[in-house]
């Protein structure tokens, strides 16, 4: 304050003394209404602190006079979303699978809802996008162990596969031709070679494959069919196509004959509600392999 005031010669107004490249800042007074706005903001903030949650108090907080809570709001929004979905879910629950598939609205709702349920429940085994992996079937190709129409998919989801706790679970078991000594190791090699030829692959030797044909007819054809096309009634996989659950090379096929692996899928009936299972069914069916 002791400094001498600098007056701008043009404006006749005192400057702040700050100068940049010869341009000085004028020290004009603020308009008074600006001050009022400032005070109003302070008053507003105090009111805000009273009305809304504001002050932390140890492990709790001052919750404000109107009881505003984001947590409660989110719960309300979720409840509202559930209510909004209810109409569709009710229709899905009472409609047949075929009717859902043929109704554009229900179909798109189910594909989205089923997709969400799929991510929550199925992805750990069947993989993101339903691509599966060794031992876990790919759900988006057109090869099905137990059938790929809506009813068959629904049945599989509800009762599972080889699931002890469900009497109606789908069940199949292939004999362990090696460990149970049903076939000699040489015979297993021969039948492996024959199986490779079913899907157009090269056997280790033509003679071996030829010898395997008889063994296949005697031991395997009852389930896998004479031409290797499998039997869905028994869950016997087709051996004459290009889709292999445990690998298509000689070693993988031989290992499966020697001591077969059997996958297990839990029954989802009871765990998931019927509408969700129906949506899952329609979703899986719509992934490209549905029959």
């Amino acid at each position, binding site marked *: 304050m002791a400094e001498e005031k600098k007056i701008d*010669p043009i404006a006749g107004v005192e400057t702040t003394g700050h100068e940049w490249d010869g341009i000085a800042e004028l020290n004009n007074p603020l308009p008074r209404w*600006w001050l009022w706005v400032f005070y109003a903001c302070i008053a507003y903030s105090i009111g805000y602190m009273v009305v809304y949650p504001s002050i932390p108090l140890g492990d709790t907080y001052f919750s404000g006079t109107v009881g505003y809570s984001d947590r409660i709001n989110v719960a309300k929004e979720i409840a509202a979303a559930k209510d909004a979905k209810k109409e569709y879910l009710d229709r899905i629950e009472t409609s047949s699978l075929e009717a859902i598939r043929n109704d554009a609205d229900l179909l798109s709702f189910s594909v989205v809802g089923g997709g969400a349920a799929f991510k929550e429940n199925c992805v750990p085994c069947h993989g993101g*996008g339903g691509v599966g992996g060794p031992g876990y079937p790919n759900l988006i190709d057109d090869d099905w162990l137990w059938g790929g129409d809506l009813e068959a998919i629904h049945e599989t989801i509800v009762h599972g596969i080889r699931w002890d706790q469900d009497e109606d679970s789908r069940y199949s078991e292939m004999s362990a031709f090696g460990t149970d000594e049903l076939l000699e190791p040489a015979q297993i090699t021969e039948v492996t070679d024959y199986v490779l030829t079913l899907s157009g692959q090269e056997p280790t030797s033509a003679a071996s494959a030829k010898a395997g044909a008889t063994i296949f007819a005697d031991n395997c054809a009852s389930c896998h069919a004479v031409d290797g096309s499998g039997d869905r009634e028994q869950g016997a996989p087709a051996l004459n*196509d*290009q889709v292999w659950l445990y690998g298509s090379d000689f070693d993988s096929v031989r290992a499966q004959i020697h001591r077969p692996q059997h996958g297990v899928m839990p029954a989802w009936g009871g765990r998931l509600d019927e509408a969700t299972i129906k949506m899952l069914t329609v979703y899986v069916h*719509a992934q490209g392999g*549905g029959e």
Partner: protein
Amino acid sequence: MIRNLKNKTKAVYAPADKAGAAAEKEKPAPLYAKQIKIHPKRVWGAFRKLKWVAMIALLSFYYIAPWFRWDRGPGIPDQALLIDISAQRAYFLWIEIWPQEVYYITGILILAALGLFLATALFGRVWCGFACPQTVWTDLYVWVERIIEGDRAARIRLDKAPYSKDKIFKRVIKHFIWLYIALLTGGAWIMYFVDAPTFINDLFFKGEITGNSLFFIGLFTVTTYLLAGFGREQVCTYMCPWPRIQGSMTDEDSMIVTYETWRGEPRAKPARDGDYSNRGHCIDCGNCVVVCPMGIDIRDGNQLECIGCGLCIDACDNIMEKLKLPKGLIAYDSVNRQIARSDGKAVKRKLVRPRTIFYAILLTLVTGVILYTFGTREHLEVNILKDRQPVFVTLKDGSIRNGYEVKILNKTQHLRSFLLNIEGLENPTMKLSGAIEQTRSIVIEVQPDDVKAVHVFVAVPRKELKSDKTEITFSFVEMDPGYSDGSLDILNELRENQKHQTTFNGPKK
């Protein structure tokens, strides 16, 4: 140069200012200053007329525009100007803008900015003086004030007078009318976002109004009342950034409101003998000051507060006419011309200069770009997103299948169908998600004004794949939708075929 002119002006006044400054020297400058109430005096003249015309035209447009109808067919709003927030569409006459096309709005905003630059470089702050809502509504409010309370002198008297029946009556009436105008302003604002007749019908005949509408009407009522009734010049001087920006838009050749210092000074009381040869033409009547809505003295030179409305020119011209002196002591002119004339030279107006040419070119370019993109705007938009998980699937017979999410936006008001084919693959087959049979091509139908999302599976025999990555093309051919009502010809013009590149993945060879 502006500085120079100001210096000239100041040189005349400086003694008084300096004396004041010296007296102030002892006290620290105040931190806050009270708003000095401005009572603009009524004035007649060319600029006042222009202001009336602009005000009537702009206010009429504002209040009437939402009521214009534009038939777009059944089920679509028929309001000529409508921003339908909930349906995510904006309608301008025959134009319908989707949210994806918000860049058109951006373009219009850029145009508006460039237009403002050019107008300011040419004619100073014409926007501020004639077209800005703040100016228009303030003008309207002052007009109401004058009708009720009288002109400047009467208003000042009323302000100073103690509260009486008469004063209270006048004040109540004034504020009531102000609030009413504000309410109409807020109400009209809503009309651009809802269907105007429906809104009025719901409000007055059913008594229904949404909380949202109520909030925005309230907001605009309060802001109009406060800003036009009380804020006025404070808004321009303290709140609006444009006065600061305009400094860099104008130059010595921009047409602005100027005072002919060389002719007006030294000012003195009117000459009784009518001889103005040895003195300035300014008689210091102060009319230019009292009519100014910003409360400034234009004789101090161009200044931040001046909105370029020209009312001081009207006021001064009226006086000059009475005194039989040449008009234009305060004139709409450029700084360069004023300086030249003070030396007795005449200089032509220089509207074409690098700055204005540059702004004009920019304006033309941006207009061109917008018109071009709008002219070639498609009424069909296709987005194709390839499935990444998995990139491909092997089928039983060894075929390779890829999946694609296809989104089709139909921006017309017709049902449209498209034949989808794949180019770039030998013997491809397709099906939509949920379908069972694979076919050579598929037909996709899209509802009017809608987005259709479908999942398309494309399969091809493995032997046909030459590599693990094949460039393919989705070809959409618009099909005859089979209209029988004669609208087929219109549709033919809009018929659009599109091709979109994407890739098809397969196993490594």
